[in-house]
């Protein structure tokens, strides 16, 4: 009978823990949205950020994100949903944050991860806060497995530059991911120590061995004339890390394996 009591107590403890999970989670952070959609129960999510409903901005699969209501980012909309856990970002305005603090809404702030390790730590933090540590750990394993599968030795030099001219540059999550997938970024050769805009002139004077861009159809004529090899890449996969690391690593590895 004694063992039965212990089991009963354990069940009660487990049920209590389940109850203690936040049940009305609101996220103002598009990167957290993507993690929540993977680890939280559908009933736990009260609202996600409007970025995740935007086909051009979302870091999560659009159809999955559209199953949940989105809010526009004002304090009013968020408070109206009476969240018991609120994810914000370092870019949430001070006044908005202050309004939540006065109302005693529990807040967790998450930045944009700059390394793969940061991103994995963030997945765990979000999952733990949502009371879904086990699923968080499983998601981390899945990401790690995808990274191992995408890993390529013998790096191939390449430059990632968006159609707007933006180069993620050294120290970015994009470059870390490229390195894992066997692509050595040559951004430093153009004088980049961090993210910045690269104009066409230096690019044309030193054509990169491989150009990775978000809009391969809009490659400027001068680069076409120089016959720079071009590979297309879905820019949305690089905004946040988290679950999007899985398809991102896969795409980059496919670029690495493509014929020169």
């Amino acid at each position: 009978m004694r063992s039965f009591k212990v089991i009963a107590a354990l069940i009660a403890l487990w049920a209590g823990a389940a109850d203690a999970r936040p049940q009305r989670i609101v996220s103002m952070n598009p990167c957290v949205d993507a993690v929540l959609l993977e680890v939280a129960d559908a009933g736990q999510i009260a609202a996600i950020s409007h970025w995740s409903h935007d086909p051009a901005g979302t870091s999560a699969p659009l159809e999955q994100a559209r199953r949940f209501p989105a809010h526009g980012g004002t304090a009013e909309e968020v408070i109206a949903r009476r969240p018991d856990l609120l994810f914000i970002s370092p870019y949430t305005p001070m006044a908005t944050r202050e309004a939540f603090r006065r109302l005693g809404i529990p807040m967790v702030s998450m930045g944009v991860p700059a390394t793969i390790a940061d991103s994995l730590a963030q997945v765990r933090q979000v999952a733990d806060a949502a009371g879904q540590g086990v699923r968080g750990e499983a998601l981390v394993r899945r990401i790690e497995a995808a990274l191992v599968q995408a890993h390529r030795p013998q790096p191939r030099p390449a430059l990632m530059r968006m159609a707007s001219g933006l180069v993620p540059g050294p120290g970015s999550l994009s470059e870390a991911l490229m390195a894992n997938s066997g692509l050595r970024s040559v951004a430093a050769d153009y004088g980049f120590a961090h993210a910045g805009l690269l104009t066409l002139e230096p690019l044309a004077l030193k054509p990169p061995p491989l150009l990775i861009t978000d809009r391969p159809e809009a490659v400027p004529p001068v680069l076409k004339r120089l016959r720079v090899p071009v590979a297309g890449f879905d820019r949305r996969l690089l905004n946040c890390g988290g679950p999007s690391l899985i398809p991102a690593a896969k795409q980059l590895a496919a670029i690495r394996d493509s014929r020169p």
Partner: protein
Amino acid sequence: MRRAQLIALLALGTVATFLLSLMAGKVWIAPWGLAAGTPEALVMAELRLPRALLGLVIGAMLGASGAVLQGYLRNPLADAGVLGVSANAAFGAVLALFLGLSATPLLVAAFGMGGAVAAMALLALLAGRSASATGFVLAGVVLSSLAAALTALLISLAPNPFALEEIVTWLMGALTDRGWPQLWVVTPFAALGLGLLMLTGRALDALALGEAAARSLGVDLRATRWLVIAGTGLGVGAAVSVTGVVGFVGLIVPHLLRPFAGERPSALILPSALGGAILLLLADSLVRLSPGAGELKLGIAMALLGAPFFLWLLWRKRELIP
């Protein structure tokens, strides 16, 4: 200095700065003796040549419009930037970007010209009603703020961060990475605008004596007004739709050249066009030489150069503003 000498000197300066603009950059390239097919030759043919030509056309347009506006309004503060014509052109172009028309440069230019012509027409109507220089500049400042507010409204309504990035970067004003397609869009309208402005010379000289005197000299004031509206609107509108707002050229250049060209407004138009081209080409060469991986924005550089210079000018000759 005789007028012919001045124009010859300015023309020489234009050729020299044009060559400088072809050569200057993070990498200096001599425009002669380039082997076909090398990256240097391609950069010269596809990027530097159209960019330098754009600088020439747009600089000339902005300089001439400044000289004509200052003459027409008999106001040394007049300039497409100060009077809100550029800001309204920018609003028109941003509206086109907002509506997703950025793939059709001709439409963006049409929106820009629409904004510029509307602003010019409104100002000219106001000028017809009250001749007060202060009132007129005030109206321009109000128009400029309105356009800035409407532009900010569109930015705040931008559908996604990438559209926002595109609009904000464009607004800062630059010739960076512009090529032949942009040149083909601007040149016909700038040439037409410049031509229309050149036609106003005689009327401007008469207007310097006052409206009544001009009328008695047989000047058709209505026709003059429409020439100024259409010339400035088309030229500045097309220029802004390609480069974003690049200010100060139209304001500074006529002031710089007036001591040499004389007080007659008609004698100032051609020198100001050449001077505007020199200033813009020089500034655009300098921004390409800025240190770091990127480029300084031309609009920002122009303001950094122009504002202190203009203040110094005002300080030195306080009688400039009546």
